[in-house]
């Protein structure tokens, strides 16, 4: 029986339910020292003298390391991805991208609140924090800039004094005659929409531990990272060591959502300290550090204009966006270019003009957060389409339906170059059907029936496309043990997505064994020589196909060897439940493990030249990305006197290609939607004008709770991707892409008679009240 498409219960649950998970902070490293950081209290300041004498005098303090020491040993950090601009991207959008090295610890200036300035290594975290209090650092505050548009204005304080301005990236694109389309249009809407800054905040913060082998000096690193192999390679280069003598493990990782995919100063500094001191060193981030210093997400403002004919057909879109990169432009085009390539989403639009400017500011660095530029794009275009519908006096869903790319247009070339340098082509999907099916189950009437003059009901839509399964590669190795157990080793690590189950299903399917006989090992750089990691909704597409290919190769190998053992031709054999059988000869069977056992080097009967183990490795290198899509519909209630918005029902019609484990897919969607609801209603990272963080704890940065869970209705439309053998598409991020736009549309709909326009979130009670009061004429 096939295991694909079956909600196999998760293999990873039992350990976690028993409290036997192993997260970085759970590891017990003999004699490990612990670290606390002194972090910048200023958004922008010159660093003067650092006096560590009192800290060093405290019993139990082993070392204080600051930028003067690290500057001599560690080059400023630069990530390869920040330097990548494919030629086709260059030709199409003429990007200017400033590579922006980040010192592990700064020597001259700090440029955001929370930036690490010095690290104290002590016998315990408690002592290390005591010592941080004893460090005397002279700071000379400098003018700071927080807002991206202000940072780009003439005369703004400069974040990097050697740059002539704060512009980190710019690019632009034009297709068709945009001006002519606007001139000919019957209806034009133009508005500014802001995707406010948010924080991914997984419940496990970051953590790094490192130990040095006293015999050979090899380095063991444990990090709550999404990309153990990339971190290993980064450490090898920055520490000047052989990658073979560095092993990076991501043990259990407690959620990530993008925030654990960068290499941080701490990822470099903890191993650096371990090497310098010759002892194990460990650091677990606390929540205050996490909210201040881990990367944040969103923070874009779009000036978007849409031109349409009288029937609501969109003739042209023009969008000028500004993004806030925070203090360091770490990852280059990744997020802003995603915004560009996802702006038009599922819509068939002729003329398109786009320009993006990215500014550095004195705030924490901004990097991918679940969706990585897509929710920002969707907020801009979907809000604009709602405005267009209002202008036309038409149903917003009808206006959307009128402009969708049809299934008959697939594969659909957008005329845009994707970030990997290939032409952007939607491989498959049926967007009108997704919308039709979502509309069928909105059940507006049920909620309208309970509406009152005070409590208004509104419905809002968001439709998105999502490029998923980006390369360059992922590695998988599949090995059959003599016991019959199957080991799957992969470079893709997990942060809760259930890969141990999903990838086991794929291996079981390809091999003909039970899922229970498959063990998946990920997150260990020693498991496979090369790997990439889990990010960008890529693991099922890239690692999944690698696992499937490697398992198929092992199966072929097993059948060939078994054919000799059973005196049959390999095409006469089949594998089911881990047993190889000859068709038509019920007595001729062989457990799969027996084939592996037969191949052991010490078996005298082993044929000459046969492999010495039953194993295969596959490196899957995908071509262009696969395109998932979804329609989100929010039904909300808005309480007029208090401004409280309640999401009552959330419909998701979704297409992520062939589904391997429906329960896991639904779990990813619902989890993503809830993050989106959090961002739509509550969550916002706030800095004051001087760059002081005002949302430094969970009382001020408010995550949604169980009490805010709406009823969910999920609809699947599974159009297989023609781009990979499994027909799968990625889906980890999709849930988070639509909610801010759909909820904004729903709130606007609920308040339609007041003429409220939602330009930004989060739609907490005070902002909604302000909108109501302003609409009522103050």
């Amino acid at each position: 029986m096939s295991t694909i498409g079956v909600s196999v219960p998760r293999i990873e649950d039992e350990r976690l339910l028993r409290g036997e998970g192993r997260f970085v902070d759970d590891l017990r490293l003999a004699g490990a020292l612990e670290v606390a950081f002194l972090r910048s209290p200023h958004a922008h300041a010159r660093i003067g003298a650092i006096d560590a004498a009192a800290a060093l005098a405290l019993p139990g303090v082993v070392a204080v390391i600051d930028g003067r020491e690290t500057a001599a040993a560690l080059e400023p950090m630069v990530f390869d991805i920040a330097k990548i601009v494919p030629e086709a991207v260059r030709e199409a959008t003429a990007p200017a991208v400033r590579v922006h090295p980040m010192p592990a610890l700064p020597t001259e200036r700090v440029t955001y609140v929370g930036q690490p300035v010095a690290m104290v290594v002590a016998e315990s975290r408690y002592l290390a924090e005591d010592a941080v209090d004893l460090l005397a650092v002279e700071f000379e505050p400098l003018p700071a800039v927080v807002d991206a548009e202000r940072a780009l204005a003439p005369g703004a304080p400069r974040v990097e004094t050697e740059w002539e301005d704060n512009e980190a990236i710019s690019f632009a694109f034009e297709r068709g005659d945009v001006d002519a389309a606007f001139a000919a249009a019957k209806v034009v809407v133009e508005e500014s929409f802001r995707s406010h800054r948010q924080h991914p905040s997984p419940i496990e913060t970051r953590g790094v531990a490192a130990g040095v082998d006293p015999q050979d000096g090899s380095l063991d690193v444990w990090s709550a990272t999404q990309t153990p192999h990339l971190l290993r390679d980064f450490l090898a280069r920055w520490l000047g060591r052989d990658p073979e003598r560095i092993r990076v493990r991501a043990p259990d990782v407690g959620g990530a959502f993008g925030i654990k995919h960068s290499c941080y100063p701490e990822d470099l500094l903890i191993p650096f300290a371990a090497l310098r001191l010759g002892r194990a060193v460990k650091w677990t981030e606390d929540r205050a550090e996490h909210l201040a210093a881990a990367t944040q997400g969103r923070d874009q403002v779009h000036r978007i204009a849409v031109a349409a004919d009288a029937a609501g057909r969109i003739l042209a879109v023009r969008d000028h966006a500004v993004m806030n990169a925070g203090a360091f432009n770490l990852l280059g085009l990744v997020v802003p270019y995603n915004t560009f390539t996802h702006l038009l989403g599922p819509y068939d639009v002729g003329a398109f003009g786009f320009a993006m400017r990215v500014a550095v500011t004195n705030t924490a660095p901004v990097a991918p957060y679940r969706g990585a530029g897509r929710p920002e794009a969707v907020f801009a275009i979907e809000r604009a389409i709602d405005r267009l519908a209002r202008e036309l006096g038409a149903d917003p869903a009808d206006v959307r339906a009128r402009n969708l790319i049809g299934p008959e247009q697939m594969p659909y070339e957008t005329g845009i170059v994707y970030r990997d340098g290939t032409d952007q082509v939607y491989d498959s999907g049926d967007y009108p059907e997704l919308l039709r099916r979502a509309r069928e189950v909105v059940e507006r009437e049920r909620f309208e029936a309970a509406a009152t003059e005070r409590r208004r009901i509104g419905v809002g839509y968001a439709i998105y496309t999502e490029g998923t399964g980006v390369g360059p590669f992922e590695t998988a190795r599949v090995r059959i043990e003599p016991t019959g157990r199957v080991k799957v080793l992969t470079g893709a690590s997990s942060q809760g997505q259930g890969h141990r189950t999903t990838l086991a299903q794929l291996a079981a399917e390809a091999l003909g064994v039970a899922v229970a006989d498959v063990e998946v090992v990920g997150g260990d750089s020693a498991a496979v020589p090369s790997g990439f990691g889990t990010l960008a909704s890529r693991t099922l597409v890239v690692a999944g196909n690698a696992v499937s290919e490697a398992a198929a190769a092992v199966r072929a190998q097993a059948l060939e060897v078994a054919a000799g053992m059973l005196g049959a031709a390999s095409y006469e054999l089949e594998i089911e439940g881990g047993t190889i059988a000859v068709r038509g000869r019920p007595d001729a069977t062989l457990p799969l493990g027996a084939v592996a056992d037969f191949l052991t080097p010490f078996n005298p009967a082993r044929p000459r030249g046969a492999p010495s183990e039953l194993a295969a490795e596959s490196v899957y290198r995908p071509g262009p990305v696969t395109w998932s899509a979804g329609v989100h519909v929010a039904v909300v209630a808005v309480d007029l006197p208090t401004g409280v918005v309640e999401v009552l029902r959330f419909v998701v019609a979704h297409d992520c290609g062939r589904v391997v484990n429906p329960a896991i897919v639904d779990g990813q969607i619902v989890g993503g939607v809830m993050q989106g609801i959090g961002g739509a209603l509550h969550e916002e990272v706030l800095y004051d004008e001087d760059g002081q963080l005002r949302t430094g704890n969970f009382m001020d940065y408010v995550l949604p709770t169980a009490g805010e869970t709406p009823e969910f209705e999920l609809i699947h439309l599974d159009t297989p991707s023609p781009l990979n053998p499994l027909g799968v598409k990625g889906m980890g991020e999709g849930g988070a892409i639509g909610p801010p736009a759909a909820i904004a549309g729903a709130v606007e709909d609920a308040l339609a008679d007041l003429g409220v326009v939602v330009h930004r979130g989060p739609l907490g009670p005070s902002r909604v009240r302000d909108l109501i009061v302003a609409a009522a004429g103050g």
Partner: protein
Amino acid sequence: MADPGGEREVRLVVNGVERVAAAEPRLLLSDFLRHRLGLTGTHVGCEHGVCGACTVLLDGEPVRSCLVFAVQAEGAELRTVEGLAGEDGELGPVQRAFHEAHGMQCGFCTPGFLISLTALLEERPGASEEELVDALSGNLCRCTGYANILAAARAARDQAAERA
């Protein structure tokens, strides 16, 4: 600054077993459990009492172990996630419900949810929907979107009500 010395013995019962370890007065109960007793199933997510990941039962009451000093728990009876399985080693009903309803993803917040729900159902086996939501609203989960956690809670409640 606190005196880093002054360690004293703290004696308490954890999951039915008497445990003794040294703690300075400022040591948090969460750190004591995790790093002195090696019971790392209790997780720490915020250290300011909001996320609920560190919830344990202290004399039967759910408390955030990051807001309690270890010395305050002297003589107390504690239950942690490690103590939720049955005597036969099988997963307990609340644990099973989370598995069956896919009420967990990364599993980091899960111990706190399990403890909060256990506390509620031991006191009110037939808890209402409102009581379930209320009891679980003090725990943050960033992965699941709560829908399956609530489904697991309802299933565990139905079983508890049947047993009661």
